[in-house]
């Protein structure tokens, strides 16, 4: 009897201990906490990571941060994250993830912490963030807090060159072809597109497809349409027309972002299709001679629809993430929020980008004077009737996204053996890549 009573007592003690235990382990008073923070350096240089690390250190003086700034391209970076996770997560607490299809295995492995309940306890977050930018995953959980700004598919153009040759911003494909003809005749590269990486070329095809049916990408991803339906076929034909007209820079299929930027900034190229993240830096570097326009309508009857819809927004599951095995999840979530905020602060203060998802004034940032085209785009954003993330970020798998980008790169070679039909057939096939 005594044994049974003691056993019951022991069980009761254990259960009550469990009940009163804090829901989330947090560091004890005075405990020195170490936190591994990882994000990509590479293309943006060291300034941004340095700024973020400095802000984190100021905000969390009791935490010893171990920064892991990975140089190199996106795949190097993503591989490092996956390797750390596969190796048991040692050395990983908070990291920036580029999201899209690449993050799917990370989510499937339950390596990212669902942040919903932790975010509610972060002191300065929900009051300062644009709520629509915090996008839950399909399972309803929030895994990422955005670091990158909101961006849109636009075509940047050199105002000085357009003025010099009395060119108007094209509203239709035919007008664009005519603008390209004039520029080419005058020794200016009409369009520079960094097709080497694949995605800028995909953006161009999608940009034209949007002018026929803005919801086409969403429909394709939902299985309600195909790439071989009218919008993408017409978009491919539009690109083909431009390629045949010699509208693109000769080295387009092997042109990278740095080369395209250099050609556009130097005035050798007149138009640069890119995400709106490039708008403010281009305006700054070109003495105010950079402006933007939306993709011209393929069909003249769609001209009035231009600017009402635009592909882009906030990337799914992209931003600061917390490793599910982190020792102090609440603290790590606060660090992730701080990482997101300081990253965006840098974009706002240094890059003069107004496309941030936080209320900078409420957070005490030094708000600069934004470039007029950027402000105009911010104004437009409020009027967009429909938007959907870029096609390469919403493909069903990483292999599908790769095939889409490779096919588009191949299409931009304008090879006689790879025309519109072959390209569209490959796009349809890419949807089957698992």
């Amino acid at each position, binding site marked *: 009897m005594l044994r049974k009573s003691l056993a019951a007592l022991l069980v009761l003690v254990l259960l009550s201990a469990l009940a009163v235990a804090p829901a989330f382990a947090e560091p004890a008073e005075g405990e020195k906490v170490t936190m591994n923070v990882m994000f990509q350096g590479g293309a943006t240089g060291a300034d941004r990571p340095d700024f973020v690390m400095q802000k984190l250190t100021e905000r969390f003086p009791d935490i010893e941060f171990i920064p892991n700034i990975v140089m190199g391209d996106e795949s190097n970076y993503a591989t490092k994250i996956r390797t750390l996770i596969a190796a048991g997560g040692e050395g990983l607490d908070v990291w920036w993830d580029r999201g899209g299809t690449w993050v799917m295995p990370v989510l499937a492995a339950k390596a990212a912490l669902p942040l919903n309940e932790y975010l509610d306890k972060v002191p300065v977050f929900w009051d300062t963030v644009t709520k629509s930018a915090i996008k839950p995953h399909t399972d309803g959980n929030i895994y990422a807090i955005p670091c990158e700004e909101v961006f849109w598919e636009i075509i940047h153009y050199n105002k000085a060159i357009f003025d010099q040759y009395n060119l108007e911003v094209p509203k239709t494909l035919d007008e664009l072809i005519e603008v390209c003809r004039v520029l080419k005749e005058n020794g200016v590269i009409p369009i520079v597109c960094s097709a080497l990486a694949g995605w800028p070329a995909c953006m161009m095809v999608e940009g034209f497809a949007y002018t026929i049916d803005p919801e086409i990408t969403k429909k394709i991803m939902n299985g309600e349409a195909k790439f071989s339906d009218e919008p993408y076929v017409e978009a491919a034909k539009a690109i083909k027309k431009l390629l045949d007209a010699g509208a693109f820079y000769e080295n387009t299929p*092997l042109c990278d972002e740095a080369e395209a930027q250099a050609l556009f900034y130097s005035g050798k190229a007149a138009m640069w299709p890119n995400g709106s993240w490039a708008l403010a830096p281009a305006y700054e570097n070109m003495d105010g001679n950079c402006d933007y326009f939306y993709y011209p309508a393929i069909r003249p009857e769609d001209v009035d629809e231009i600017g009402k819809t635009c592909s882009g927004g906030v990337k799914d599951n992209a931003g600061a993430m917390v490793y599910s095995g982190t020792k102090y999840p609440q603290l790590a979530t606060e660090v992730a929020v701080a990482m997101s905020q300081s990253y965006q602060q840098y974009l706002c203060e240094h890059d003069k980008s107004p496309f941030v998802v936080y209320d900078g004034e409420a957070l005490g940032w030094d708000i600069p004077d934004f470039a007029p085209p950027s402000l105009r785009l911010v104004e437009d954003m409020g009027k967009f009737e429909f938007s959907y993330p870029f096609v390469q970020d919403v493909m069903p*798998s990483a292999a599908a996204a790769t095939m889409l980008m490779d096919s588009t790169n191949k299409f931009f070679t304008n090879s006689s053996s790879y025309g519109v039909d072959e390209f569209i057939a490959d796009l349809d096939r890419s949807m089957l890549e698992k």
Partner: protein
Amino acid sequence: MKKVLGSKLAITLFCLPGLLLFVIFVLYPLYDVIVYSFQSYDGINPGKFVGLKNYILLWNMPDFWEANVRSLYLCGLTMLVDTVFVSIFALIIVGLKPFFQKAYKIAFLLPFVLSISVISQMWLAIYHPEWGILNSVLEAVGLGQFAQGWLLNPDIAMICIGFVGMWWIFGMQMLLIYTGYRSIPENYFEAAQIDGANYFQSSIKIALPLLTNVIRLSLIMTAVGGLYTFPQVYIMTRGGPGGYTETLMMYMYKQIFSNLRFGLGSAIAFIAILETCVILGTITLLTRRERIQY
């Protein structure tokens, strides 16, 4: 020493550290590659055994075969240039005055001092269609009609990329064969000279047969180098434009790191290893000869 070498235990103990490293860093990863090649694995989540599915998939993938053919083509081309031509070149240099021998050796070895990444970046600039040196030189010497986008032309892009690796390793291969030549006892050539043989005849009849082992080594190095061409492709074209320069290694890299298909990538790796074994076996068989005693 004799006592030590006579003891099997001592020999085993001496070999053990090297053997251990070999097992850890060569055999175990190789075993892992073979295991992964029978799995569907994304690099994070536990792999699922899928039998021969990855190999069957590869069999039906035209891109894989095209990449394989390109790599084998590069393998053959590199062997031809960096062994056959280099051997001829080395034999010519050996006949020059010492000053010129040194000058040529240094000149050809210089590229090898730089990493292949730097070399690739340099050649990327040389080949550039708009501002590349190659087109400028052609224009300057009146051969402007040949100026073109060297890496954009599907017919020559692969050769242009292959040339970068061949150019890079040319000096190293030359030094290898040159050193092999210098190690042949002088009296062989003197005897041939007394018998009335000229330089060409001594090179063909004496030097080349005695250089068989060195040439075999050179063939093996160039064959492997050609088959496993990757950094030049990654830096210069990423397999583009339109996949025209995608080698087997680039294809494997893409499957693993872009498509997250670690299982399929491992199957490609295993096939590449088998191909290497066949190529190296063929080279060894073709260059097999009796042991030469000087």
